């Protein structure tokens, strides 16, 4: 765990909120990820011992200052470290006692581009970003990747080794390299956002990925896909208040739309409109456009489903994946009915055998067709594969309603 024994919820809150920023700052100052992580870890352990009487006024600043001292202590212990210290002493003097917000944001962007460097394999990029920018523990990342904790720890060690050995720079890429480098950053940001969306415990990841994506858009205003991802996140974010009642999942069609955040929808839709005017469509922009159509509708029945199917057709041309096909099939269900949708879903099921939502969608279409026994086995299969407890409960509820409705 990152924050020692985490017996104080105050320390834990600061950890979740500030970890990424603090590590990014330390990486800039010392140029070494492992040292930065270890020092920040030390600082949080010290905080959990000392903050019993109350949290200092600027907790993130306290952590940075403490971590910097710990890093210097660690460096003084060996000869190579003492050499490195001479290199960084100027930066240290310049930094002492103040945190420049602009600089901190740049620190994070630099670290994002390092973590998402295409010379690292994608699963390593994601793991590093979640660990260093999101502050997730190794165990948490391991669970979200469905691998064991030692396997994930090994992955992170290998990724950090490569950054260090190959000298992957901490730098925002030059204009010429940006499009390629940005693609992997956006994919990682969206995955982090979705991790926060799926798990209320990790909801801070949503704010974190939104903040980082906003910063990316500000840095690259001419990159429509960055804007598209931001719009997609904002339109999803607008629905968060309606996505659950207590711990229970509420599907889009059943959501109380008065709970949707109109300001976020306005912002998201304005970005989508600007993207349409720009005329350089990409996968994130199209997904945002689909969500914008949903956000226009007063209810599920009032939704312009043919428009959504047509946007999915366009998306399939740019992003021909089984998951996009599945989502298109679900929209087809609203236009052409459950028989057509079921045929389309069956066409992708073999490629998504382990994906719970394909079975949930099949269950739904089978239920609408009155094929209750088949619907039940589909929901059961979905429940067995569902990664989270709320999703399992939701699917069990579908099964219970199925029995009651017969």
């Amino acid at each position, binding site marked *: 765990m990152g924050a020692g024994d985490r017996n104080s919820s105050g320390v834990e809150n600061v950890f979740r909120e500030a970890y990424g920023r603090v590590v990014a700052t330390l990486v800039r100052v010392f140029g070494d990820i492992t040292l930065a992580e270890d020092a920040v870890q030390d600082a949080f352990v010290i905080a959990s011992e000392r903050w019993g009487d109350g949290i200092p006024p600027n907790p993130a600043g306290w952590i940075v200052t403490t971590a910097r001292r710990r890093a210097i202590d660690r460096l003084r212990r060996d000869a190579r470290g003492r050499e490195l210290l001479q290199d960084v002493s100027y930066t240290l003097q310049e930094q002492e006692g103040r945190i420049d917000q602009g600089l901190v944001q740049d620190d994070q962007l630099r670290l994002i581009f390092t973590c998402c460097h295409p010379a690292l394999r994608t699963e390593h990029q994601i793991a590093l970003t979640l660990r260093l920018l999101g502050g997730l523990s190794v165990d948490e990342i391991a669970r979200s990747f469905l691998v064991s904790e030692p396997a994930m720890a090994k992955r992170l060690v290998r990724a950090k080794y490569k950054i260090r050995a190959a000298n992957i*720079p901490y730098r925002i890429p030059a204009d010429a390299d940006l499009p390629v480098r940005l693609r992997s950053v956006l994919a990682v940001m969206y995955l982090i956002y979705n991790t926060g969306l799926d798990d209320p415990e990790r909801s801070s990841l949503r704010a974190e990925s939104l903040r980082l994506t906003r910063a990316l858009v500000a840095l690259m205003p001419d990159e429509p896909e960055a804007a598209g991802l931001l719009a997609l996140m904002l339109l999803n974010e607008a629905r968060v208040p309606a996505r659950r009642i207590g711990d229970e999942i509420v599907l889009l069609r059943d959501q109380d739309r008065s709970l949707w955040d109109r300001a976020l929808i306005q912002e998201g839709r304005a970005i989508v409109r600007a993207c349409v005017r720009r005329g350089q469509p990409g996968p994130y922009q199209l997904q945002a456009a689909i969500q914008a159509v949903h956000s226009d509708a007063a209810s599920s029945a009032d939704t312009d489903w043919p428009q959504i199917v047509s946007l999915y057709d366009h998306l399939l041309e740019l992003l021909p994946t089984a998951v996009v096909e599945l989502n298109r099939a679900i929209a087809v269900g609203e236009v052409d009915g459950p028989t057509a949708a079921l045929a389309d879903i069956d066409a992708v099921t073999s490629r998504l055998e382990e994906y719970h939502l394909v079975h949930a969608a099949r269950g739904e279409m089978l239920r609408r067709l009155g094929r209750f026994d088949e619907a039940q086995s589909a929901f059961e299969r979905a429940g067995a594969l569902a990664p989270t407890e709320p999703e399992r409960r939701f699917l069990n509820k579908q099964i219970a309603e199925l029995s009651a409705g017969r």
Partner: protein
Amino acid sequence: MNQYLLSTWAVEGGVERAPGSPEEMQAFMQRVIALEAEMEVAGAFAFGGALHGPDAATVVQLGGDDVVMTDGPFAESKEHIAGFYIINAEDLDAALAWADKVVAAIQHPIEVRPFRATGKVADNMPTA
């Protein structure tokens, strides 16, 4: 400044998409000569070379009290290093920028690998 090995690999003796006709060979040579001149000017060129095939290799090793030599390459694999550059580069991005140019010139994949240390071991010993 760091150093990186940019190596090209031959598969079973042959280099895929190697220049076939004399015209192709001439164009290939011109691209490579221009690139090497560019490396030289930028201070990136440290060393480069093309290797004879694995059939020309000899393995030398300790066998009991004797030194034993055997005909052939060390690794019995389909792939063998065919040639390489050693370049000076500030960081991986700079090395990859050179790698892009090498790939464009030779039309063949390369592996970019950082050196842990270069030069004489004695020169790399800690001073303390």
